[in-house]
């Protein structure tokens, strides 16, 4: 075992430790049932904001960068029949979720509020049926559909009929809020 080999091994170990130190949030499996706190939801139906300048809440949901929780959200999206109204993001009874139009806002806390509280035009309120963690998982998945979450955490195709380009192939999105003529038109 030559000294250069030892040096090289030491070097490798250093690199390993350095990379490992950057813990990979993306791969964390949140298996406990601890509840992420619900946000103080701030929903804007219009961009106009009287008074002091509108300061947005966080632009990232707790699970936006977590592939596992996004996948859990994907499963919930089917199980809770979200796909019945929103199809696989293209919409049906409910509006499309994979486009860049967000009637009630595309920020994680806004989507959280839409799911938890429901929306007047037919979106049911889920807060009595799902816990906060599950809703946050749905938020992460819904945002992944339109390319709002980091690409590496977005789901690939499902083992089903190929109906949408997989979220991991969707380009990153720049969302617009409330760009429809009238929110009341769209449930």
């Amino acid at each position, binding site marked *: 075992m030559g000294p250069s080999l030892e040096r090289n091994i030491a070097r490798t170990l250093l690199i390993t430790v350095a990379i490992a130190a950057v813990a990979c949030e993306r791969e964390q499996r949140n298996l406990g049932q601890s509840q992420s706190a619900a946000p103080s939801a701030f929903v804007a139906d219009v961009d106009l904001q009287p008074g002091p300048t509108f300061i947005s809440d966080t632009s990232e949901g707790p699970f936006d960068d977590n592939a596992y929780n996004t996948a859990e959200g994907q499963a919930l999206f089917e199980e809770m029949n979200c796909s019945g109204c929103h199809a696989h993001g293209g919409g049906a009874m409910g509006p499309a979720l994979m486009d860049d139009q967000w009637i009630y806002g595309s920020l994680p806390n806004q989507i959280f509020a839409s799911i938890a509280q429901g929306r007047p035009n037919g979106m049911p309120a889920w807060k009595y049926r799902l816990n906060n963690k599950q809703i946050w998982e749905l938020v992460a998945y819904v945002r992944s559909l339109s390319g709002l979450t980091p690409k590496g955490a977005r789901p690939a*195709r499902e083992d089903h009929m*190929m109906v949408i*380009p*997989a979220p991991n192939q969707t380009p990153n999105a720049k969302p617009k809020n409330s760009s429809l003529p009238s929110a009341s038109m769209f449930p």
Partner: protein
Amino acid sequence: MKALRPVSDVGGLPSVVFGQRSLMWWGTLGFMVIEGWTTALIFASYFYVRQNFEAWPPLQTPLPSLTIPTINLALMLASFIPAALAARAGKALDRAGVRRWLTVMSVLVVPTVVLRWWDLWALNVRWDTNAYGTAVWLLVGFHASLLLFDVGDTVGLTLFYWLKPMPAKSFSDASDNSMYWYFTVALWAAIYLIVYVGPRIF
């Protein structure tokens, strides 16, 4: 340790040899077996998933187009002539001949890589549409990587022949290059028949 007793002098043996006498020929053969076998396995997978479909290509999936792949195959087959001549010139230690035929060969094979892009789109299906699309894309795409490597090899060798005084060993390389090219084209002919022509017949 026993004392050494020379029994033979090998100084007179050649140091550049052709064909199966040369190491590089064996190495090339080894990788041809690996790549050919990989293609065979993909073919096996292609026929395996085919069992899951009532029609092939599946209903609602168009047949692949023939024009571009056929042109590409013709081009590759045409390049056999300069390839054979380059190999022969190599064996005859004809440096100018090798250079000439490698150049002709390069001119013929470089377009095949470009056409390969259109070969893929001539499949008329996306790789993620269904398992059929996946299988044909992988066959054509995997061969594309072999093609790219081989064409790069040919062009590189040609450039060396133009830019550098090539050592005697490169004559052997030129003939091995032709051998690998025949193999690559033979694989393509198989893929062409099975992927592009096959569904029209069966």
